[in-house]
Structures are given as structure tokens and as C-alpha cells.
């Protein structure tokens, strides 16, 4: 089994000619990318451009058709079994639809972030340690959610659920946060709260953040580095200032106006 670099040393993540094919369509086509610890990267593009597939490939929820993912020299695409699950724990995901377990309470959902470190026996009886519970409560408190800790997840508003999902991700003590359209299902106020939370995690905790965004303004406001995707290809990689009319046209085609 390939040993993974310790969590605090995942410094450089490289994608090498990474591709994923679904039937006849190339969802991600030969992506080459280098991401350094501590960056906050916004990925923009039309729906179907391959943004979501790219993040799922990095977390290994989806297997690549070809190409490699390399973390500090270790080939992540070769990981299997426990090593693969440890990798997933280090690259925490946030989803557009939050993907919380509806019938579990908020606290248990957050504690799910610890599952990678638990024995089957502890999982079976939900035996989380007192220290894990304290960490979960404090993380919820950080996002102003401590008082809803014992409510069922589906009793919360979308904005609250997304922050619960972020708390779950933080319990994984990840090196990287992969956020797939985290604000697309939210109203503007909640969207801002969630983006502020991601930025705070990036600044305060030093966790790398890769975030898929539908709207250009949000990407410009929060990210110093922007990656533009179109039809599975990376067509732009640079600071927001580099997003000229021509570049935006290459990313969005004729739909530029629909992505303010």
C-alpha cells in the first residue's frame, strides 16, 4: 500500500492529463493543474462543463478514465481500500444539495466526519468519543448552529444545512475542501454566509479550498485564482483580472450574460 503523506504535508496537488469519459462524452478532458497548500481557487464554467466531475475525481468518488492525481509525489489514483478512504477524509467535499443524512440529527451528521477514524464496532453503536463530541459542538458553534445540534438535519433551512455540511467536512480535519456549487441552492444572504465561512476556513485554518461556482461575481469576490472550464477542458487559469471578454467568451460561449 502506498503510504500517504501526513495531512499537514499535502503541499502540492497535481492533476496530470486527468480525464473522465461518460459514454460518448468527455466530462473532463486532459486536465493539468497544480494547486498549492492554502490557495482558494474558484472553478467557473457552464453547467456540464465538467466542474463537478473534476472535484469528484479529486475526492475519488469517481474513477478517472485516464491520467493521474499526485499529492506530494504520491500517486493518489493508485490508492485502494483504507488508503483511498483516508484520502477521501483529507479532501472533504461539500455538495450543492448538502447531502446530509436527513433522519440523523445535526450533531450526528457532523460527527460523520470522524467515520474514517472509527472501528466498525464504534460505528455500529455510534460510539463517538467525548472529545469528538466537543469538537463537533464547538465547530457547530463556530457557525452559529450549536442550538440546533439535536434537531433533525432536514428540519433546518438550506443555508443552515450547508453550514452543517461544512462542519462535517471540518471534523474530517482535511487538508483540502472541495465545494461543488455550495451556494447554488441558496438565497443571497445564506450564499454570502456560506462563502464567508469557506473564506474563513481558508484564511484561519489554512485549508486549501477548491470551489465550483456558477456566478462570476462570487468567484471574483472570493478567489485570487480562477480556473475556467468549458466542455471538459481547462481554458483559463489565472487571477480574476485576467478574465477578459475573450476569455469569458471561451468559458461561457454565448451565455456570458446569464452568469453575472
Amino acid at each position: 500500500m502506498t503510504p500517504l503523506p501526513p495531512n499537514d504535508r499535502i503541499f502540492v496537488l497535481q492533476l496530470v492529463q486527468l480525464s473522465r469519459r461518460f459514454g460518448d462524452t468527455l466530462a473532463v478532458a486532459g486536465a493539468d493543474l497544480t494547486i498549492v497548500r492554502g490557495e482558494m481557487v474558484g472553478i467557473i464554467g457552464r453547467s456540464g462543463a465538467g466542474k463537478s466531475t473534476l472535484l469528484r475525481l479529486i475526492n475519488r468518488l469517481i474513477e478517472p478514465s485516464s491520467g493521474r492525481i499526485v499529492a506530494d509525489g504520491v500517486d493518489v489514483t493508485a490508492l485502494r481500500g483504507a488508503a483511498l478512504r483516508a484520502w477521501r477524509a483529507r479532501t472533504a467535499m461539500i455538495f450543492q444539495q448538502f447531502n446530509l443524512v436527513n433522519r440523523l440529527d445535526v450533531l450526528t451528521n457532523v460527527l460523520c466526519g470522524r467515520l474514517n477514524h472509527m472501528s466498525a464496532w464504534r460505528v455500529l453503536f455510534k460510539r463517538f468519543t467525548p472529545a469528538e463530541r466537543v469538537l463537533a459542538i464547538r465547530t457547530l458553534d463556530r457557525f452559529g448552529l450549536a442550538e440546533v445540534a439535536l434537531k433533525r438535519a432536514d428540519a433546518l433551512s438550506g443555508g443552515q444545512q450547508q453550514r452543517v455540511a461544512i462542519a462535517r467536512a471540518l471534523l474530517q480535519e482535511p487538508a483540502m475542501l472541495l465545494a461543488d456549487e455550495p451556494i447554488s441552492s441558496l438565497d443571497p444572504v445564506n450564499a454570502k454566509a456560506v462563502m464567508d465561512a469557506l473564506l474563513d476556513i481558508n484564511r484561519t485554518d489554512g485549508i486549501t479550498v477548491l470551489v465550483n461556482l456558477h456566478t462570476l461575481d462570487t468567484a471574483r469576490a472570493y478567489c485570487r485564482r480562477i480556473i475556467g472550464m468549458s466542455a471538459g477542458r481547462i481554458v483559463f487559469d489565472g487571477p480574476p483580472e485576467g478574465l477578459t471578454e475573450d476569455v469569458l467568451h471561451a468559458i461561457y460561449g454565448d451565455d456570458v450574460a446569464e452568469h453575472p
Partner: protein
Amino acid sequence: MSLHLADIAPTDIAAQRIRTPTAFGPGTGTKVLRWAVVLLAAGYFGYLLWLFEFGKLFTGLPRLWTIVRLMLDWTGFADWDHAELLRSMLETVAMAYLGSMLAFAFALPLGFLGARNVIPARVFRFITRRLFDGMRGVDQLIWALVFVRAMGLGPIAGILAICVADTGVLSKLFAEAIENTDRKQTEGVTATGASFFAVLRMGVLPQVLPVTIGQTLYQIESNSREATILGLVGAGGIGLRLSERIQINAWDQVAYAIVLILIAVALIDTVSRWLRMRLIG
């Protein structure tokens, strides 16, 4: 061009008949066939009445009337063995409860093994699904007859019969519930680096548990009704007492036992419906 009924001449009718014969109702052949089918069905019905000697209906009616009269005569109420009847009634309910709970315990893991999203291997799933069908397809009563032969008279046979038949029913229902779980919720757990077992425990089980409990409660309810019949073939409970009393023509006590069954079933129905509403809602 306007059409009027008065304008239609016999020649028009003859011409139309040739062009569109089916517009004038079924042909002679069809009519004959229809009558033949009706006569055959009526003839078979009459033959069966003769074959099964339905004349007995009239000679038997007075006896049926006697039985009803005996059933309504409860003057001996104080002398009946109330303790035994009540104990048997409780035994029937206990059989239904124990049989269903054991079935739940077996069906939960089996349900996972029979679900497409847990075991993608088609061959394995085919075998587990046919196993469920086998347990389900054979009626509880048949299982009861088998287990009475093997274990002797008494509630153990009834409990086993309920357990086996219900394991088949519940496993199938659970497997389907597991296949219908929301993929987004399980994906969220998988992405944390949880093991397959942890995903099933924390992602799938919370989604299906209320459904499985609801279905098991319903089985307890319906088994309390059906366990009576199991008693008739010797598998314990009030049914056994019922059959004994029918054999000795103690019709008043038969009626009493039936009333007890109705009360018990109504009670269990109410409690179980209330519990299900609480658990699933």
C-alpha cells in the same frame, strides 16, 4: 350536404352493408359463438351444483341454525375455563410478536444482501431474491404443518412458521426500501472517507429504519389475526382451543373465543397504528 334519416333508402342500406359489414353489429358467426360460451358457462355451473350435491344446503340449514342458537346461549359463562382461553389468546399474540420480531432480526441483514445498491453482483442477488420468494411463496399454514410434524404440537411450531414466512416477506420489502434510498445522502457519507459498512450504518440504515419498523409492526398486527388459523392445525394459541371446542360441539365457547379474538385484534390494530404514526411521521 345535409343528411336526413328519411332520405336513406333500402338500396343505401344494402350498399353500405357491403362496404362496411362490421358497422351493422356482430356477424352470425360471432353471435353463435357468444351464445355457445354463455350456454357452456351456465351448463358447467349447473353441473357443479349437481356434482357437489347442493341439495344438502337445505338439509344442513336447520343444523346451521342450531349452531347459531347454541353460540348465542351464554348461560354457562361462569363455568367456562376463562383462564385457559385468555392464556391461549395471549399465547397467540405472543406467537405473532415473537415470530415477527425474529423475522425482523433475520430480514434486516438479508434485506441488505438482496439490495442492488449493496450487492451489485447479479448472480448473488438472484439467489437471495429467489430464497425470499421461496419462503414467502409457501403459505404460513403449510410451514405450520411442517413444523408441527417436526416440533410437535404447540406454539414453537407456530412461531417458526410465522418467522420463516415473514422473513421472506420482510426481506423483500427491506431490500426494496434499501434500493430506494437517496443516493445523495449516502454519497455525503462516502465522501468523508467512511468504510462501506459505515456508509450502510450511517447513510443507509437511518433512511430505511422507520420503514422497516413500520412494516414489522404491520406484520405483528396481521400475524395476530393469522396466528389463530395456525392454532387450528395444532401450532398453539387460541386456534388450538377453538378447534378443540368445535370438535366437542361447545359452540357457546367457540363464540366466546371468536369475540376474544376480535377484541384482541382490534386492540393490536389500534396500538400498532398509533405506534406506526408516531415512528414514521
